[in-house]
């Protein structure tokens, strides 16, 4: 009897020990499982953040860096009256843009290259040479409206967002603060993209379509951009420098599409003001300086 009780005691002792051991293992496994789950959640949150659209503030930070580099390289053209005029024309067309969550800024760059470009965050630049090539205000409005179209269409911003999402794996996107190495690299990338490589032809056509829409809605003739492009084509054939003709789709293609839209929308108003006289007065000093 005593022996039987002793054996039963052993039997129970072993079982209790087994239960305790199992409990311990299960707790350890659960802790490890929890840890893995925590890490996975953190990773998912980082990816989610990277995939999320950029905030207006983030967009402005990158655009500001691009603008600073452009200003450092070309320098602003110092003519307060001309800057004011370009801003008045720019704000007139920008007011017709679908995108009103940002403030648009316009400036003239002191460059002989016939160019205009925009950066995320609402920064629009036109060069002194591009202004000199325009013959009236409606052409200037067309060029500025095209650039506003790039910003409204988020053409560069979408590339930046895709890049940000890709770089998340490297932990680079975490350093997404003004002046950071990542923003520096990104702003250089934007400049290389828009000036050396060019945006996708589809984005250029889209900016053209948006541009003529804004210019027309602002009260200008819709064909201002097309007239400027024709002159630009001639100017570059005669040796003028412009990345527009190098990186953008052929002018003939662009103007054909613009013409189709104008025709389809019945925007061929001939009584709309081109404002050549006002343009001549406002750009007199610039053109005299060039001559």
């Amino acid at each position, binding site marked *: 009897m005593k022996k039987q009780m002793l054996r039963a005691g052993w039997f129970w002792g072993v079982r209790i020990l087994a239960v305790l051991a199992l409990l311990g293992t299960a707790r350890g496994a659960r802790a490890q499982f929890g840890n893995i789950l925590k890490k996975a959640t953190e990773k998912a949150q980082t990816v989610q953040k990277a995939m999320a659209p950029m905030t207006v503030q983030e967009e402005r930070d990158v655009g500001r860096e691009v603008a600073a580099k452009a200003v450092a390289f070309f320098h602003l053209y110092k003519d307060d009256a001309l800057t004011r005029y370009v801003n008045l024309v720019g704000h007139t067309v920008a007011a017709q843009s679908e995108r009103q969550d940002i403030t648009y800024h316009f400036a003239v760059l002191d460059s002989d290259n016939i160019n205009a470009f925009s950066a995320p965050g609402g920064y629009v630049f036109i060069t002194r040479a591009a202004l000199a090539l325009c013959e009236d205000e409606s052409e200037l409005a067309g060029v500025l409206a095209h650039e506003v179209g790039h910003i409204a269409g988020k053409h560069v911003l979408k590339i930046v967002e895709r890049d940000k999402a890709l770089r998340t794996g*490297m932990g680079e996107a975490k350093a997404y603060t003004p002046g950071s190495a990542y923003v520096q690299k990104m702003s250089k990338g934007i400049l290389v993209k828009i000036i050396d490589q060019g945006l996708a032809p589809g984005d250029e056509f889209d900016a053209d379509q948006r541009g003529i829409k804004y210019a027309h*809605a602002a009260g200008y003739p819709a064909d201002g951009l097309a007239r400027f492009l024709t002159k630009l084509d001639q100017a570059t054939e005669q040796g003028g420098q412009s990345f527009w003709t190098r990186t953008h789709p052929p002018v003939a293609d662009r103007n054909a599409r613009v013409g189709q839209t104008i025709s389809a929308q019945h925007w061929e108003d001939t009584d709309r003001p081109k404002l050549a006289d006002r343009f001549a007065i406002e750009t007199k000093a610039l053109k005299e300086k060039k001559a």
Partner: protein
Amino acid sequence: MKFASRILTLAFPCVLLGTLATPPLPAQDTSQPNQTQQDQSQQGQEKADKDKKKKKGGGFFGGLKAISGSSSEQQEATRTAGSKTVGEGAQIGDAQPTAADRQAVSAMESYSVAAPEIKKFQDDGKLKPKQ
């Protein structure tokens, strides 16, 4: 005795499942070595990703490398526009803005034209913008 043994056999999986289903414990010492292992494997993974990225050129702006090199895009640009303007975007991108340049950008940002002035400008030009 047999009955108790059966109860116990049934109880094992129940206890095991119950333990796993309950909320996790606060930080446990047992998890520390696992944490270190995970960190090490994560670091290894990040390094591997970095190497992979380096080989590919990295991101959508991987073209940056091509600017200083001799990519087909650059060769094409050289043919079409002459070497004078090739890589200008990269040159601009390399520009280091001074405090004065940054101040100029700030001035550009704070530059404003009042709504009445824009209205007058449009009226003078006989523009009739959509409201």
